[in-house]
């Protein structure tokens, strides 16, 4: 997107998010009395830190606990143990509306994450109204519409779609709408849970570029949840590889891809089919 003035926000030293020994156990219930017989340790004691302006990726295969971690960070799930600190403040002590102004989430499936009965204007406008009300003062309708249009421009959509419905848009456009909704709260950190995995290759590239543009122009930080290691290598600054609820390796993109330490990471990297034809026999 060319409309955005880039002021190249570099990664700073300030820690925006600190996760300490985070745990989430899901009970396994049996029988008529729903006796708890065991626990699934979806996230089993993970710790990491994200600097302001950084794109931090959590990667791993299905069931490794990466999406659970994403949900814990925005408190769609409550942790069993451990702490999540936003600028040093425990997020469990924040009110939900406060947290929503700091951390937002973008989901994988742009079809399921937008209410089909609401217009685009309402979907984004609702978030805009929350934000304006939180800032204090009376909010009028025109202000909301103006702000909504501005957000649509930011994510590369035309501003005359306020009265249209989600089904009128393609996957890529819907993902842009989801991003606009997240931006409406003016968060500092965005958790992006598989933001491009349901999109086609040509559209995927547009959204990846958009995420980078927004990072630069708004000074955002991202937690990227992804399974596609090519996307992760392109987009992120630092990576944590998860396996069975634990982080098995973490480091900068260069470190993890070029000097892989853990055998699991190695097997993951080796499994990606590279887009280079093999020499014919």
């Amino acid at each position, binding site marked *: 997107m060319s409309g955005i003035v880039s002021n190249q926000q570099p990664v700073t030293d300030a820690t925006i998010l600190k996760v300490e020994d985070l745990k989430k156990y899901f009970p396994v219930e049996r029988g008529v009395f729903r006796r708890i017989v065991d626990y699934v340790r979806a996230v089993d004691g993970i710790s990491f830190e994200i600097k302001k302006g950084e794109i931090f990726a959590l990667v791993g295969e299905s069931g490794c606990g990466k999406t659970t971690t994403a949900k814990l960070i925005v408190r769609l799930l409550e942790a069993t143990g451990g702490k999540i600190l936003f600028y040093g403040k425990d997020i469990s002590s924040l009110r939900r509306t406060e947290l929503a102004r700091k951390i937002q989430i973008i989901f994988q499936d742009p079809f399921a994450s937008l209410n089909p009965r609401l217009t685009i204007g309402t979907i984004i406008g609702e978030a805009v109204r929350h934000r304006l009300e939180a800032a204090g003062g009376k909010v009028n309708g025109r202000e909301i519409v103006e702000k909504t249009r501005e957000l649509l421009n930011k994510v590369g959509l035309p501003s005359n779609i306020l009265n249209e419905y989600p089904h009128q848009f393609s996957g890529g456009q819907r993902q842009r709408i989801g991003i606009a909704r997240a931006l409406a709260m003016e968060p500092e950190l965005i958790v992006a849970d598989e933001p491009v995995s349901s999109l086609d290759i040509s559209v995927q590239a*547009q959204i990846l570029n958009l995420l980078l543009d927004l990072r630069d122009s708004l000074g955002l930080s991202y937690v990227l949840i992804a399974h596609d290691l090519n996307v992760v290598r392109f987009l992120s600054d630092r990576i944590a590889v998860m396996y069975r609820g634990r982080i098995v390796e973490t480091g900068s993109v*260069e470190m993890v891809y070029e000097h892989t330490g853990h055998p699991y990471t190695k097997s993951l990297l080796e499994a990606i089919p590279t*887009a280079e034809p093999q020499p*014919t026999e």
Partner: protein
Amino acid sequence: MVMENVLEVKNLSVEFYKGGKVIPALRDVSITLKKNEVLGIVGESGCGKSTLALSILKLIPEREGKVVSGKILFKGEELLSLSDKKLLKVRGDKISIIFQDPFTSLNPVFRVGNQIAESLALHRKENLSTHQKEKEIIELLELVKMPKPKDTMLAYPHQLSGGMQQRVMIAIALSSNPEVLIADEPTTALDVTIQKEILGLLTELQKKLGLSVVLITHDFGIVAQTCQRVSVMYAGSIVEEASTSEIFYSPLHPYTRGLLDSLPSREEPVGFSQREKRRLKAISGQVPDPSSLPSGCKFHPRCPIVIEKCKPEEPGLREIVENHWVRCIRAGEVV
């Protein structure tokens, strides 16, 4: 060496009917599959690649759509005009198919062994005794490298992982000793490490059994690793067809070039100081709605090298270099 054409699709057009609208899903599609070849069909969602797979086996529900024109030849024999009874001898028998999602393809209430037995009973002429059947089922499960085939035989689909379920699907597909295997996104639902195993298995079986394979995928990485030839589809037609290395190293259609450029993996590795400026070369716009395709070349609204002549008329496929076909009037120009 002249290789035998096992499967030929000639100028196939398929339409779907939805809400009073005619949706052209395939427009003038031709592919040729040679014996022992792995042909890749690659494209984005809605480009018609799955419709192509289904039409080859006449699996498109009659109420929803139909083949408007074209031919499908299996070893020279026309499939579209065959009676249902005769078609059954080819479908599943000579041409098998595996789908993207193994869990929805398997019946959840029957044991895996029974589901393989069903296919054996349908496609084998001789009546097998229970003992023989069991032996064959175990052999098939061993063929697809299933650990503990005897236990798997008695398992229900939900007791198996996605990768194991796909192995069972492959076993069922191979139970009739087919000559052609159509694999429609066989690994899309699987994790990368499992994907690697399944693709390795398919390649190995293809060589061992002399199969000819049509591999449908959206993943260029998979194409590069497994296919000898590739057809790139866009908006219901083939826009480029060539050997895998030609497609990757000298693509001629602007769409193919755009797709390859937008892959994060093909991005030049940048130094740490440059990382702030990293961006992908994306194709602008989006895939057109199949019910309202643009005029002329279907890619022209998104094409970086579009000229006036692209808009009125859709170009045909032209052979620009030997065995390298492109649907673009500007292909071959020095751009």
